């Protein structure tokens, strides 16, 4: 079994639902309360079933998924988060330099929900496939 690619992840209804729920939870219409939300996408290495773990609430423009919870029999295959700050106020909706660097460092794709849709960065699939550490690949 191979690790899912970005295209396969974005076509998965569980991932789609997670991205949309994170977007709603990030309160993009609330000037004072908007903040980044997101989490981790796991794949069960035996069944191939995808599951989601949300990460703690984050800051306005910073999000931490660097210490993923261990899910028995599963490995992390992607991270996801929102960019809720509006283009109209000068914010860039796409991946930041740090989004790309961290995705390359952690070894899994980074999925981003912003006001203009979905953006992605980092590797196309988990580095090294479904083997290795249960969290991020080594």
């Amino acid at each position, binding site marked *: 079994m191979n690790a899912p690619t970005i295209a396969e992840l974005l076509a998965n209804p569980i991932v789609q639902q997670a991205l949309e729920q994170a977007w709603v939870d990030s309160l993009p219409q609330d000037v004072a309360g908007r903040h*980044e939300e*997101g989490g981790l996408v796991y794949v069960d290495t035996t069944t191939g079933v995808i599951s989601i773990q949300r990460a703690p609430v*984050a*800051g*306005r*423009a*910073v*999000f*931490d*998924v*660097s210490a993923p919870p261990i899910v028995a029999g599963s490995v992390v295959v992607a*991270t996801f*988060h929102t*960019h*809720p*700050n509006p283009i109209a*106020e*000068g*914010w*860039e*909706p796409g991946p*930041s*330099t*740090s*989004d790309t*660097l*961290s995705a390359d*460092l*952690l070894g899994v794709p*980074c999925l981003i929900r912003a006001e203009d849709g979905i953006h992605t960065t980092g590797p196309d699939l988990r580095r090294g496939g479904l083997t290795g550490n249960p969290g991020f690949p080594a």
Partner: protein
Amino acid sequence: MSASSNPSTLEQSAIDGARALAVAQADALKAYRDLSSYRVQIVQEDDGWHVDYELKDARLKGGGPHYVIDAMTSAILSKRYEQ
């Protein structure tokens, strides 16, 4: 010999990096509220002071503000908010 009183002939002082940082930080705090996750790099280039906020922890997702500050007037010439 007396000094000229014509304002157009007076030399304008260039701002230093601390002043450029203060201008950038005032704007950044309004947009980001909390800058504790960032380290700041200030470099003077031909087009002004470049003030760049980058995340301290390379494993974090997110982004910081990036400015070019006029080295003569301290005006913000350009800014970019990463998230």
